[in-house]
Structure formats: structure tokens, C-alpha cells
């Protein structure tokens, strides 16, 4: 039996990177959709793996990123508040849903998409600035600046979260309007 080189190359690529891609997807879509999005990522990768230049992981995560985005866009639009927060790039897994991470989750949710993505690619996916820049499709220097700013914003958001947690009720009097919404 003759196995073509491209199959062998792809098998190596798949086995070396499947776990990283799987974890990337797990962090970003709900559990029920993980298998679908991972499968879609590797189907696209198989069809296009001749496009790879250099390290395949950033390239694969770039495909996974688009697959996740497509999936999230397709979800129901009208969702309750709880679901909205759950739709942030953190599935409602037990560790993430625990109390000690609540403050961090809310602070992350307060950031812009680009800031959050920069932080998570480095802190969770373990990518270097150069690799993360390839995933999002920008220059390494641009990504480094984005990450630096995002770190500062997250620190600020965490400080504000602490302020929120200690704030009490703010009652006010009066009932002046009958606007309808």
C-alpha cells in the first residue's frame, strides 16, 4: 500500500496539534459544539494545508478562530443575560464558573473583543507574540502593543470589579416619567 507524502505530512500535523486546537475551541464555544468546530477546522486544514508556511499551529488556530466566529454568530440572537455572559469566550465549565474566577470573568467580559483575544491567545493558548500575531493576522509589533494595552485594561477592569463588589444600594426617590421601551 502506498501512502502519499501529503497524507503523512497531514497526519503528523494533525497529531501534533489536535490537542492544542481542541483546547482552543473548548475555551471559546459551548461544549456541545466543540466537536463540530474542531472537525470543521481540520477539514478546512486538510483541503488547504499546502498554504502552510512555517509553524502550523498559528495557521491552524487562525482557521479555528474563523470556525468559532462562524459558530458563535449563528447562535440564537435573543438570549437572556446569563446566556450572554456565558457566550463570552469562556464556556461554563466548572472551574471557570467557580466563585474565585467570577471577578476575572466579569473583568474580561468588560474588555473589547480585540483586547480579550490578545490576552487569551497568550495566557491560555500559550502563544508567543509572533505566533498570536499570525493567528489574528497582524504584525508582531502591532500585536505586542495591543497586548500591552489589553493587560493594562484588564488590570483596570479588575480594580473596578473590586469597587463594584464593595458598593452598596443607591436608592433614589421619585417617579417622574412614563416613557415606554
Amino acid at each position: 500500500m502506498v501512502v502519499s507524502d501529503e497524507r503523512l505530512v497531514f497526519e503528523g500535523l494533525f497529531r501534533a496539534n489536535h490537542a492544542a486546537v481542541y483546547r482552543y475551541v473548548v475555551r471559546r464555544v459551548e461544549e456541545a459544539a466543540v466537536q463540530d468546530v474542531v472537525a470543521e477546522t481540520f477539514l478546512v486544514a486538510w483541503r488547504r494545508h499546502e498554504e502552510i508556511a512555517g509553524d502550523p499551529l498559528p495557521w491552524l488556530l487562525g482557521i479555528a478562530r474563523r470556525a468559532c466566529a462562524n459558530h458563535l454568530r449563528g447562535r440564537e440572537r435573543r438570549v437572556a443575560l446569563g446566556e450572554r455572559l456565558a457566550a463570552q469566550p469562556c464556556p461554563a465549565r466548572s472551574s471557570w464558573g467557580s466563585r474565585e474566577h467570577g471577578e476575572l470573568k466579569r473583568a474580561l467580559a468588560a474588555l473589547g473583543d480585540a483586547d480579550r483575544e490578545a490576552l487569551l491567545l497568550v495566557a491560555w493558548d500559550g502563544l508567543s507574540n509572533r505566533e498570536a500575531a499570525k493567528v489574528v493576522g497582524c504584525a508582531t509589533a502591532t500585536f505586542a502593543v495591543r497586548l500591552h494595552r489589553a493587560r493594562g485594561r484588564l488590570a483596570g477592569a479588575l480594580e473596578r470589579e473590586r469597587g463594584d463588589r464593595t458598593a452598596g444600594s443607591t436608592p433614589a426617590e421619585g417617579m417622574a416619567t412614563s416613557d415606554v421601551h
Partner: protein
Amino acid sequence: MSTDAVMTRLAAADPARDIVPDRDGAEALLELVLSSPRDRSGHQVPVAGRRRRGLVVAVALSLALALAAAALAAVGVIRLGSPARPSGALANPRQGLGALRPGTARLLGVAVADPAGGLAWGMRLLGTTRGVGCLEVGRLLDGRLGVLGRDGAFGNDGRFHELPPGGLSGGGQCANLDANGRLFYTVSAANVPASGWQGQGGCTAPLPPGGRIVGLPASRYCRAGELRELVYGVLGPDATGVTYTLGGRQHTIKPVGPEGAYLIVTAHSGLPTDHGRYTLAGAIGSIMPLPWSSPITSIAYRDGMRCLIDATKPGTLKGQCTPPGYRPVTARLSDSQVVSPIDVRVVAMTPAGRRAIRVSFTARIAVRKAGSSYEVAENTSSPEAVFEATQRNINAGQTVTWLLPAPKPGVYSGKIVLGLSGAPPYPIYTYSPGPLVGRFSVRVR
């Protein structure tokens, strides 16, 4: 906290840190991916290619059946079945999406042939009592919108089952109306059975390689030829042309009526379909078509404006057009207009003295639209963090009360906001909490 410490803390909170994917599942996926033929140009759909022969046979078979059905229908022989049951989505005029607003349900003037023949596809628009517009698609018979008893639906009885107006039985797609009360909404939907029926009992679209629904027998999955891609929407009265590319060929159709309605129907494999430029998997709705989920490349308008859908930068809204005539709903309320004293107390619930927190306040602003709700959000520092939204009509001066569970001792705190959403929220969901009614905090001993 230093930014380095922030990154360390963030890394420690990685929810997937300890997850190891199942090796057997990974190997099965690899095998399935490798069995999918490659197209070096990168533009061909591998799954469709792999199944082409089967698809041709299935389409031919479907075509024969559909032609037979069409012939029967043409001579008035296609039999009517019982109307589809309402889904219950529009059951209450004062909550959720609301109920059908009388006089708003109307068939739009589109009738599009099915790839396998048979009854044409059509579309209905309806409005609800809570400011929502919905689009329903289905098969047309004598000016009625319905579904066919096939592909597992209605016991494969071969009959036409009317979709009752306001029932949303056929899987309608809804979005908030704009500030002028008009619907601007576009949908790309894969995996719609050729029967038109998207409710219970119909076949289920197959999952991508490696995926299966536990407990679902193979016979319940839709077969090739039984599924369609539906791309449809309403673009407003000024739209004059919709240009799209399918199968490498460019087409232009003219939107119909004052709603600017269009409908495109093609065969679908049932698997996520990568057309090269865009991918279709599931249903995606947005004000304007999105280049990564729709074959539409441009939309022309009466004033000469041409909206290039292709110009939208993938993953962002940069380059996206606002359709002429669309007026967004904007919330202009400030905290001072909604702020109200919050009454919070611990109450004993029967049986067994379970305790709960009763949170109430008097609403100053009435809520009548599905896009608005008073929302209570307990801080995640509370022993139990609960989120709830009213999702019903609230009068000004009305007392709103929630009973929130308090299973453990501790300090429960949170806030109440008036959540306001635009129409429709697209394409990437961003949460805007809206003006603050107030905060609360209570200790449960």
C-alpha cells in the same frame, strides 16, 4: 495588581488547562478527514465531492418523487393534511416575543423553485405585539404557506400541512423591528429539510465527521438530497438588486415588494458547507448579509448606491453598509431616569424553611418591547449568582419582584438594570447592560 500578575492570574484561570481530548475520537476524526478528497485549488467542497455520486442518485430519486408530487398538485390531487401545530413561541401577547399582531401576517411575493422540483418555496412576514418581526419560509400551495409530509415529517404522509399564521410552527426567524417599525433582516440557513418542516419529527441534519447525536438512530438523519440551503430576507423598499455567486456563477435577482424580499434555494449536503468564500452551517441572521455566511456579494439600491458585501472585513463590521431606510433603535435613557429604591429582604420559603431573597423595586419606565427587559444580576462573589430578566410587559409604577435562591449563608449582592437592545443585535453579540436601576446587598445567616 501589576500587569504581570494579571497575566499569571489569567493563565491560572484557564478553563481548558486540564482537558485532554479523547485519543480514539481524534483518530476517528483524522481518518474521516483523510478520507475526504482534497481539491488543490481549495475551492471545492470535499464532502459534497465525496458524495457526489450518491447525491446524483438521491437528487434524481427526489426529483422523480417531487415531479410526481408536482404533477399530482397540478391536477389538484395533492392532499391536504392537518395544519401544523403552533410552536407556542407567539402564545402570549405580553411576554417573550409577544403574539401575532392582527393584520400583519402576509405572504411575500416570492416563489422560488425547489432544486428537485415540486411545490415552490415562499416566505411570510408577520409582526408581533412586542415589536418583533418574523420571517417564515415553507412550500407554497394555492397561496398558502405550508410544509410537506416527507423527510420524516408528519409520518411521511405526502400531504401538504399549512403553517398557521402566528404559529411559528415552521421555525420562523425573528428580530426586533427598527425605529420605524420595519423589519430589516437577512438569514442564511443550512440544513433545512426539503419538506420545509423544521419542527419535531422531521429528519435531523447529519453532523460533521466524528460527530453523532447519542441515541439517535441512523435512519433519523436526513439523507443527501433531503436538505436545502435557504438564503432569504427583507432589505427594505429601496433595494433593487441582489447579486450572489453560487457554483462559480454570478446571479442577480430583483427584491420583491415594499419589503424588498428575496429568497434563494439550493441543495445542501447537510454538512457545514464551505463554498470557498463563505461557509454555511446552521442558521445565521443579521441586518445585512455577511460575506462569511452568505453567497451574496452586493446589493443595489434605488438611489444608485451599491453595497458591496464583499467589502466587509471578515470578523468585523468594517465596510458593512447600513441599508437605506433603516433607522436603528437607540436607547437614550440615563441612570437618573430609571433609578429606583430597591427593597431586598430574606424570606423563608416552605417547605422546610428554605430561604430566598426577595428583591423588588417600582419600575419608572414602562417596558413593552421584546428587546427590553429589567434584569437582575447577582455578583459572582455571591454564594449563588443568579441572572433573571423580566421578558414581559411592565407598566410604569408597577412593582417588579424576583425571588432569588439563597441556599447558603453569605452576602448576596447585585444590581438591577434596564437592558435595552437594538434591532436586531448583529452580527457579533455585544452586551450593553443599559441604565442602572440600583444595587442591593443582603446578608443571609
